[in-house]
């Protein structure tokens, strides 16, 4: 049976004397004050980035958690927008929904291929990324502020989704209130949740509800009346999607349509937003005096709910997606910190990832990898590119920027079903099988003492799995799978001969990928 090794900290805390059953997750935001070792460095990299290369782990060993987290988070004021973009991001089209069916299908087909291309481009960014880790945070926010590429029987032009990712990148560690304001007027969001159809004559409540239920407070902190009033505040915003629509702020951007805005007074969460004279019914004034005021009210009246809700979302994505009541105090502590910092995200992320709680034995290895994490991690570790990124993501049920519902992916056990599990293993198998002999031999040689089969298996497992499997499994990996029942001293000859080593190594990598621990990080 696997027993996670007891580290010095556990020893100092006296955890050795406690039965594991009784040990609860009561660590706080207090900083983890021990230098990182291989296991803790890998843990941090797996969670705050997309799995580490061996060199990355080595470069973090010996650093404090705070030093490592500082490097990983980078400069919160730097947007780190990628140097290269897909070629199609500024292309425009006519409105497919007014056009004949042939034109419509042609345009939608084009969008589908752009959306595939966007996923490929984005995942390749994740795979290539070293430090700072930007795209992991973008991935998180993209699943918080959800947008579906295909919604109802229409599509959101991927040009808009590309811009949305850039907006997430900009805000990823910034001021959460500003972030919510940007999301509220984000063209993708306006299209997705009906904001662009929201008029003074017929308000559309869709975004107003999700703003609170899914993006800030969580359910139960507002009335149906608040939803209606918020919808009224948000009336009048439009998006320039097609070349036949007015593009007052440029194509693929939002603009304000004064005649569609409800200028009457609104009552939101018990406070009022005054009526406005038509002379002041302008984009700038409505944005600053109404939307910002509404968000000010929301973030003031419901600050505790928001801070805890967002902290819990971060916790579930990065720490553990099925926490029990044990962690309530920790979440509340995170919420308090967010409020103290006036909803600035950087101090929260910094404190959370360098905390005792994050390095607790109950957190390490407990998270089920999202398909993105699985794909990026394995590709990065093997240094092997993936041929069909959108196809693989779809088979594992995570089509990026196209979640099944506005709630985003539920993660945790929903990732692993009798449908997706075989596809996860198949992905790993296929990737291993596309590696050439030379690529595999080169991969073997990155491990220290690679010519010792026992050491190689151990190091490989430490790299690819959260904990070392037990001795029985290691022995089986070494003797049966890698060495194919040859004596252990034959391994270096097998490497020289190439073919038997390649055969054994492929079998070993596939066997590791079939181990349940491979799905965890």
């Amino acid at each position, binding site marked *: 049976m696997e027993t996670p090794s007891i580290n010095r900290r556990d020893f100092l805390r006296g955890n050795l004397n406690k039965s594991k059953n009784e040990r609860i997750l009561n660590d706080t935001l207090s900083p983890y004050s021990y230098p990182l070792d291989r296991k803790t460095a890998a843990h941090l990299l797996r969670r705050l980035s997309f799995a580490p290369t061996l060199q990355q782990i080595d470069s973090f060993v010996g650093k404090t958690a705070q030093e490592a987290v500082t490097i990983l988070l980078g400069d919160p004021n730097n947007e780190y927008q990628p140097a290269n973009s897909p070629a199609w991001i500024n292309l425009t089209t006519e409105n497919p929904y007014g056009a004949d069916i042939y034109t419509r299908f042609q345009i939608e087909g084009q969008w589908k291929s752009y959306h595939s291309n966007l996923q490929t481009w984005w995942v390749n960014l994740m795979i290539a990324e070293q430090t700072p880790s930007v795209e992991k945070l973008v991935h998180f926010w993209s699943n918080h502020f959800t947008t579906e590429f295909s919604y109802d*029987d229409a599509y959101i032009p991927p040009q808009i989704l590309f811009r949305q990712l850039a907006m997430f990148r900009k805000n990823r560690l910034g001021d959460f209130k500003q972030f919510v304001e940007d999301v509220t007027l984000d063209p993708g969001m306006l299209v997705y949740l009906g904001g662009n159809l929201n008029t003074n004559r017929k308000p559309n409540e869709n975004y107003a509800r999700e703003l609170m239920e899914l993006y800030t407070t969580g359910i139960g902190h507002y009335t149906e009346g608040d939803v209606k009033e918020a919808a009224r505040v948000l009336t009048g915003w439009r998006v320039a999607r097609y070349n036949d629509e007015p593009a007052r702020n440029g194509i693929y951007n939002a603009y304000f349509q004064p005649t569609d805005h409800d200028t009457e007074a609104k009552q939101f969460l018990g406070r009022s937003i005054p009526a406005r004279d038509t002379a002041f019914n302008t984009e700038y004034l409505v944005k600053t005096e109404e939307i910002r005021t509404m968000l000010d009210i929301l973030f003031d009246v419901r600050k505790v709910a928001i801070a805890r809700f967002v902290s819990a979302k971060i916790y579930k994505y990065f720490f553990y997606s099925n926490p029990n009541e044990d962690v309530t105090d920790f979440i509340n502590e995170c919420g308090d910190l967010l409020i103290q910092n006036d909803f600035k995200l950087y101090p929260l992320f910094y404190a959370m990832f360098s905390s005792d709680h994050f390095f607790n034995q109950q957190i390490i290895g407990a998270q089920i990898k999202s398909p993105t994490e699985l794909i990026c991690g394995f590709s990065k570790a093997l240094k092997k590119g993936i041929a069909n990124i959108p196809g693989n993501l779809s088979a594992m049920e995570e089509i990026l920027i196209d979640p099944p519902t506005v709630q985003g992916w539920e993660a945790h056990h929903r990732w*692993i079903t009798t449908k997706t599990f075989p596809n996860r293993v198949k992905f790993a198998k296929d990737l291993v099988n596309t590696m050439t002999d030379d690529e595999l031999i080169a991969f073997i040689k990155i491990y220290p003492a690679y010519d010792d089969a026992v050491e190689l298996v151990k190091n490989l497992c430490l790299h690819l799995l959260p904990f070392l499997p037990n001795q029985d499994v290691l022995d089986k990996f070494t003797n049966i799978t890698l060495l194919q029942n040859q004596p252990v001293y034959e391994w270096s000859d097998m490497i020289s001969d190439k073919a038997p080593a390649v055969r054994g190594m492929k079998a070993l990598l596939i066997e590791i990928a079939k181990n349940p621990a491979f799905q965890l990080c």
Partner: protein
Amino acid sequence: MKRRTLLKAGALAGAAASFRSIPLFAQNPIGALGQNAIDNDAILIIIQMFGGNDGLNTIIPVDDPRYVQIRPNISVKKDNVDATKRPVRILSSDMYFHPALVNGVHKNGFLGLMDAGRLAVIQGTGYENPNLSHFRSTDIWLSGLNTSDPANRLNEGWVGRMFEKNYPEFPMVIPEHPLCLQLGGSLSMLLQSDKGDMGLAIGDVDSFVKDGGTSSDSPMMGGTSNYANEYNYIRSIAAKGDAYNKVIEEAWKKGTNTTGIDFAIANGAKGSLVRQMGIISRLISGGLKTKVYLANIGGFDTHVQQQDTSNNGQHPALLNQLANAVSMFMDDAVQQGFANRVVGLTVSEFGRRPYENGSNGTDHGTTSVQFAFGTRVQANIFGANPDFSDLDRNGDLAFDMNRNIDYRRLYSEIIQTWFGGSADDSKDILKDRVVPLPYLQSPIASLNDPIMNYGNGGLRFSNDIASSNSGYLHFEVKKDCHVTIRLYDSLGKFAGNLFDSYIIAGNHSIPVDMSVHASGMYICELSTGNFRHTTSIIVRK
């Protein structure tokens, strides 16, 4: 922390068993259960319509002038120049099918099903203090627990709890055939229980079978860390997938769909729900002993462009697919001879607001209509018509206990009448005593049922020659037993006892005088022990 205990027990079991572990028990979900449990070969199909189906544009009160007033742009017009686009009256009621449920559908769709006695329309279904969030309301529907406290986490489905009760050893001992099968998507909460998933999610049967055999023989992991728990969970899914791979492959190969009923399984050309229903039909015909199937159709969140005045739009297209899928499935089931064992039920998290919005759509609402289909349903329309004069402060149809139907009554009927559970079983599962809405007759294959089954139920009503409002109820018992016959109105409200006595084996005819009751449809429910049979009586005055 039951989950923890379970996994701990699992670790021990794993240690005792050898490497490849999960012991398979030679037990099948149909037929091997204890007294108060499932004892028949009945099958339930649930069709989940995600997004909140617009009940008012599904079963339409077209004669109510307010309907057209509040929906000037999206109402279905009775005077449409194209006759195929007019609503279709349901029996002699004043409610109408949306034409998309009837026209251009296999064998006249829902109209054909109603005429053949295979469709029950259950109006005004919902719950008190309605929640307008898709997710919370879906959770309330799938859990079968009506709670207005948002802090109450809903993690398990009523189907999951039903089987959890019947399979105390699960998942260490798993049934030979999957208990529940979900077509597509991640496994629904409906099939989750305290003991983990009671079901299996598969996408495409071919690829499920082809890609099977992926579990490694990794050992169970000891300890109670989150890591160990998750590891063991993943391991059990992998093993389950492998074990079920075989039985599904077998059923798939053996099964068939009736020649001439083309579900377009290969390419999904008739829509995903039609395809799913075709797969389900083929698996049942191939002998799969799964008890509950879950099919899905999304897109009902019609905030925008729901439909125009000529019924073009997203909602009619969805209704069209729904009716086609159900009608084709029933035709296939009848022709292949398993129809008497199957009942289907639709669920959707809420209906939509009576007033249309400014985008030719509708926003989230409250009560809505659901359907039950099968040869064993009471083909009729249940529940009161929508009342536009009784709206709540959001402008949604108010839920009125006296007029509307608590959604859990659909489930208690399934638990009791369909699967043969007791009222106590139903109470355990729904955590509340919920009177079943009598829209079903029990499946014909209950071996221990003392009531003789005539092939169309064990209870029949015949009118007196002299009066249409009195007559006789006929039934035959195989052995002496206590029999109760209760009367319910179309809202499912108790309307009196017709009979309550110990009787001897043989034929019986009980006189019934309905003259004291108002016009309308009534359901007579005969019960003895856990067995129930129903029949309907129409009173006309």
